[in-house]
């Protein structure tokens, strides 16, 4: 319990320092409140103990939290490290390099577009197979401060965005997020 409290205090202090250095005004968008009984997948990139604190708050507030983890999401680098191609282009003759630069740029660009299309398919699977209606992404340790987003997987619409600049415990921070996305604040 003490370890959890220590890590949450460290994270919250870090984010307080980080956000107090920020220059921006409030960042919030809410298209429509997320009903508290919705099926959600919470993606959060934090140590497991902090993850538990966050998931527990969502469960206690009445959400149906599906067992999906940030590590279930692959990154573009896991699939195909297209930066390797640049190395290959160096291996060719010197005069090839300038001519292949267009190929490299287009290949990179198209794979990036493709990656977004593939992610949309994975999210559709989440919605159809596991009845996840909202994808919620949370970061409580980012350099720019804590932030959250929610996407309605039925429509692929972004329904909630907010940046946070508060101190205090992780529980309070998550409560603030839940209040915001459900339209209570």
């Amino acid at each position, binding site marked *: 319990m003490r370890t959890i409290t220590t890590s949450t205090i460290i994270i919250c202090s870090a984010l307080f320092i980080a956000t107090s250095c920020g220059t921006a005004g409030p960042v919030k968008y809410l298209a429509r409140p997320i009903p508290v009984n919705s099926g959600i997948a919470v993606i959060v990139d934090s140590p497991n103990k902090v993850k538990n604190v966050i998931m527990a708050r969502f469960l206690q507030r009445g959400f149906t939290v599906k067992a999906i983890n940030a590590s279930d999401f692959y990154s573009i680098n896991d699939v195909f490290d297209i930066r390797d191609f640049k190395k290959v282009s160096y291996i060719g003759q010197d005069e*090839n390099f300038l001519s292949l*630069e267009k190929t490299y740029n287009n290949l990179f660009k198209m794979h990036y577009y493709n990656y977004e299309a593939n992610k*949309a398919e994975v999210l559709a699977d989440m919605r159809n197979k596991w009845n996840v209606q909202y994808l919620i992404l949370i970061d409580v340790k980012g350099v720019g*401060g804590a932030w959250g987003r929610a996407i309605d997987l039925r429509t692929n619409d972004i329904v909630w965005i907010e940046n946070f600049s508060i101190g205090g415990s992780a529980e309070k921070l998550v409560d603030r997020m839940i209040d915001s996305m459900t339209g209570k604040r």
Partner: protein
Amino acid sequence: MKLARIPVAALVLVIGMIAARAEAAPTMAFGYLVNRSHDANYDYLETLFPNSFANALRNIFYVTIIKPGQIDRELGKDGLSLEKQYRPHELMELTERISADYFIYGDFDILPNDRISIRLNVYGRGLNRVFTFSNVGAMEKEIFKLVDRITLIMVDFLGKNNFFMSGIVPRGSKIGIFTNLQGADLNRLYCAFLNAGYGVASMQVNYIDNNLTADMIESFKCIEAAGTSYRRVSNPQAVRFLHGTWTGERYYEEITYTREAYRIYDAGYTAARSAVLNGLVARHAIDMVMVIGFNASRTRAWVRCLDIKNNDLIWMQSNIRGGLPGICSAILARMGTELTRK
């Protein structure tokens, strides 16, 4: 002591030469505008247009002009002549031969109801890129207004902001944004668009990290489209995929892979691009793809906006300055405001 003065004097001279070179006017060479109308009565416009553009540009832009006749005479010294059409990869050699920083060429066609369409290609030797755009006007009534309009488009593009805009992005449009921001910064950008009344596709925003860096997003700067486009030029004659029994299996695998990538992403790029964009649009129902690249310190940005429906690059701009909130405001103000140019 005297010896010590020589390097100082040389240094001053070199600095002076560099400064003079930095301030030197760019040299712009104009090729022919090919008559696509199949009506020989309009052939005279093939040289009249480039000469008019050259004169108009010289009047409002600090530039050294080379007109088609001058290029032809210059090339004639080597037994060559100015061709009506060039393939993009031939322009590097041509511009080197005539010592031009830019080469501007294109074509025109006569449309129904006495209208004329002009398409121009602006090749920049430094970046080895071609900017292609077109404009339509009335043949008799506003031919010189059309020349002025196109000249202003060129002036905007050649300026430090590389600005081009053919239309606004209507509020309510759904935009697929690609950027190198992430986390709270990405939230700020998306929030600005959403609160301004634009639909934003949930791309990039659906993952914690964004692995696009300020360097990597540079790959998105060139946008090829059916209408206006900004393309990188490659030379198919310079690409070699040599191999033989001396190369070994590993080398053969690599060269085969490179050759296949070249076939798909350069020679056959139009088809590859259509397939990928169609897949993206099918999943996100976007009207526009907007690429917004930021420098590492988030104090400067550039934009490209592709109209998916019309397959047209409708906006590009560089050097948008300010903090992140200021850049967001500047982008939104620009994309929603019609240019007042007549």
